Structures are given as C-alpha cells and as structure tokens.
C-alpha cells in the first residue's frame, strides 16, 4: 500500500504508519492503545508500551446499555496515563475494527488528539515488529473530560425513525446474510439476540470490511473508497448519513472511513443498531 499521504484522504493526519509508531515507542506525548475483539490478543503480546482499552470492560457501562460516562472516561484516561494533550494512537485486530470503535467513543468526549495505526495488529505482526507480554504502567494523570456529546456523531433509535423516508442515507455495514435477514444472531447467545431479521427500510448494504485491504488490514485509498461509497452507492459529502450494524462497532469503522478518510461532515453511528431495531415493537423492517 502506498504512503498514507499519497492516498488522497481528506484527513491523512488521523492515520499513522507502523513505521511512525515504531519511531515513537518512547515518545511521552504518545499513548499507544490496543483495542481488540479477541480478549486474548493483548495479553499474549502487544506493541511495547501499549496499553489495552477493552471494548466491553472499559468502554461499556456495566449496567445500562450505554457507554461510560464522563467520570468513567476521566478514570480511564487517568489509568492509561493520558492528559488532554496526549496523542492517542489506536490499533487492533480485524483491520482496526475495534480500534475505530474505541476512537469513536473517545470522540464522544472530544479527545481529538487521536489517530489510528494503519493496518493495525495484522500489519505490525506481518512486518515482524516486536511484541511483548509486559504490561506497562504509567503515572496516573488528572484528566478533566468534556461532557459526553451524543448529538454530533451518535444517533438514537427515535431520531432514526423520524428520518425514515427523508433525505437521510442509511448504510448497513453488516454481512449480506444479516442484511437480508437470513441470519440474526447466534443460537444459545441471547445477549445479542434479535426477534426480527432484515434491515432498516432504505438502508444500503455496504459491509464494513470492504473499506480495508484484507492482506494487511490497511485502509483502501480515497479513490477506491469513493468507488464503493460514491460511484456504487451514490453517497456524497452533502448527505446526512447514518451507519449501523448489530451493536455499533462495525459501523464505527465505516463512520471513521466516511468522516475522516473521505471527509464527510454529517455521519453518525446508530449504536443501538440491529439489536435494538430488530427487537423494537412496531418499527418498519425491510427484507
């Protein structure tokens, strides 16, 4: 893959290369954060100096279906030794799927000093770069967070309902089988179970992983992304766009791609996603 600066992204500054990370391992202004789907990956070996932010244990509220609140975010940032000036560099498994989810949650609190390591764990490992099982410890900081802003990049079910039939464009980033309603959830796994299969009326199916190169997890170039989202799906930067998946994690990846790599200003993640919509009474469903 070509250099990040040559790929035509709207915000190339939000991506850093594995070379860049390797050169900043001891930079006190940088905190490298690993976020994965697989909870075994970080403890089995991670980039030296990297801390883990776990999507379930750290980012979700343990009781309500919601994200951590301002107090929780301040405690999290204190634990990883970050201040408001610290540049957070996220990376993770699955082509940075979970890294962009963590990035999105951090943006709810306005921590804009945030970047993603292009290619994530896969590229770092493929390049034979060092991994360690040593968990670093950083002096606790006092972090004063902004209030969580749920209006700019997040959207709730009732707002989605109001927008149906209007000009808002919905992007369903789940697999084609989930979009068609053929697959809803895992048997024997009621926590993410849904009663109805299908998709939100009018939503276009664009599985999230199409934005990444499977061989090394890097993001596709702006031209390749435009071919998918603009030429194929007819989206444009003037659109009001809602991305959704099952619980809002895969759609964070698409939100990141549309917002930062293509520079669309009005993209929101509907994190209630299909586990909320497919269980809601009397909402329209399309198959």
């Amino acid at each position, binding site marked *: 893959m070509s250099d990040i600066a040559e790929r035509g992204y709207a915000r190339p500054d939000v991506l850093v290369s594995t070379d860049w990370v390797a050169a900043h391992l001891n930079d006190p202004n940088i905190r490298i954060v690993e976020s994965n789907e*697989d909870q075994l990956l970080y403890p089995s070996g991670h980039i030296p100096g990297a801390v883990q932010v776990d999507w379930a244990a750290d980012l979700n509220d343990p009781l309500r279906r919601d994200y951590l609140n301002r107090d929780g975010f301040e405690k999290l940032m204190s634990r990883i030794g970050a201040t408001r000036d610290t540049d957070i560099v996220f990376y993770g498994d699955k082509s940075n799927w979970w890294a962009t989810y963590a990035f999105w949650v951090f943006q709810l609190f306005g921590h804009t000093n945030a970047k993603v390591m292009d290619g994530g764990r*896969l590229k770092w490992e493929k390049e034979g770069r060092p991994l360690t099982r040593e968990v670093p410890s950083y002096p606790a900081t006092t972090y004063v967070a902004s209030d969580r802003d749920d209006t700019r990049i997040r959207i709730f079910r009732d707002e989605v309902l109001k927008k149906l039939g209007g000009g808002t464009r919905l992007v369903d980033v789940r697999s084609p089988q989930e979009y068609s309603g053929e697959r809803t959830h895992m048997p024997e796994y009621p926590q993410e179970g849904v009663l109805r299969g299908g998709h939100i009326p009018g939503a276009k199916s664009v599985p999230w992983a199409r934005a990444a190169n499977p061989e090394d997890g890097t993001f596709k170039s702006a031209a390749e992304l435009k071919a998918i989202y603009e030429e194929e799906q007819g989206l444009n930067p003037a659109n009001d766009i809602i991305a959704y998946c099952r619980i809002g994690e895969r759609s964070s990846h698409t939100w990141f791609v549309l917002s930062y790599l293509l520079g669309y200003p009005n993209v929101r993640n509907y994190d209630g996603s299909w586990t909320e919509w497919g269980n809601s009474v009397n909402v329209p469903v399309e198959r």
Partner: protein
Amino acid sequence: MTDMPEGLKTLLEDFQFADRSERIDMLIEYADRFQEVPERIATRPFPEEHHVQKCESEAYVWAEDLPDGTLKFHFAVENPQGLSAKAWAVIMDETLSGQPLEAVAETPGDSVFTVFGKDVSMGKGMGLMGITDLVTTYARQRLKARQRA
C-alpha cells in the same frame, strides 16, 4: 442422555468461577500449547470439508480414528491472530480426544460462553461454536456408522 466428558465438565467448572483476568491467563496457557495438525493427517491446502464454517480465524478440524474406537481431534488455525480459536482447539483436544463418542456428541454448544465469558462477540462466538459443531458432528457420524455396521 449421556453426560459430557468428565474432563470438560471439570474445565467448565473451573472457568465458571474464574474472574476475567484468571480466565484470560488460563486461555493463553491453552493457546500456547496449540499444535497444528500433523502432516500425516493433513497438509496444505487443507480440504474444504474440514473447514469450520463461520470461523473468521480460518479453523480446520480433523478426527483420527483410534484403535479403541474413540477419536483424536486435530486442528489448524490459519489466522495468526486466531488466539481464541487456538485456545478452544486445545481445550477440545484435551477434553474430548479419546473420550466415548456418545459423550463427545453431547458437548453443549454454549460451553464456549462458559469458557470465554459473555463478553465474547457474536462473530467470535459463532466461529468457536463452529469448531465444537464440527467436533460433535464427527462423533455423531462415527456413532451412526457404528450403528449401521
């Protein structure tokens, strides 16, 4: 109804009362013991009929017939980041290989969640359950063949 193998029952009890950090440490120890399917059983490219459906870690399962009529299970995990799949493969091998086929066939699908906890994502859970499905399918196939003989 036959009970699940004793070794699996004990393991599930161990995991049931483990906290998150103990669970992860135990799983990494299992993953570290992973040994790929020996060449005498299979070589690349691995045949599609041994491929676990819905497993993003590209897992494969084989069942080798042992002289006592039980099965020895072998695995391959093609995704180098498929650590959970490797841990689960070792658990399946250490608790189900050499056990009575009737008991292997009764392995509960939800044992994945007892071991990995409820935080396991849908995609990962489906893949891990797919590994168990293939293991129990091989046991059931041998039992049916035995009944027909």
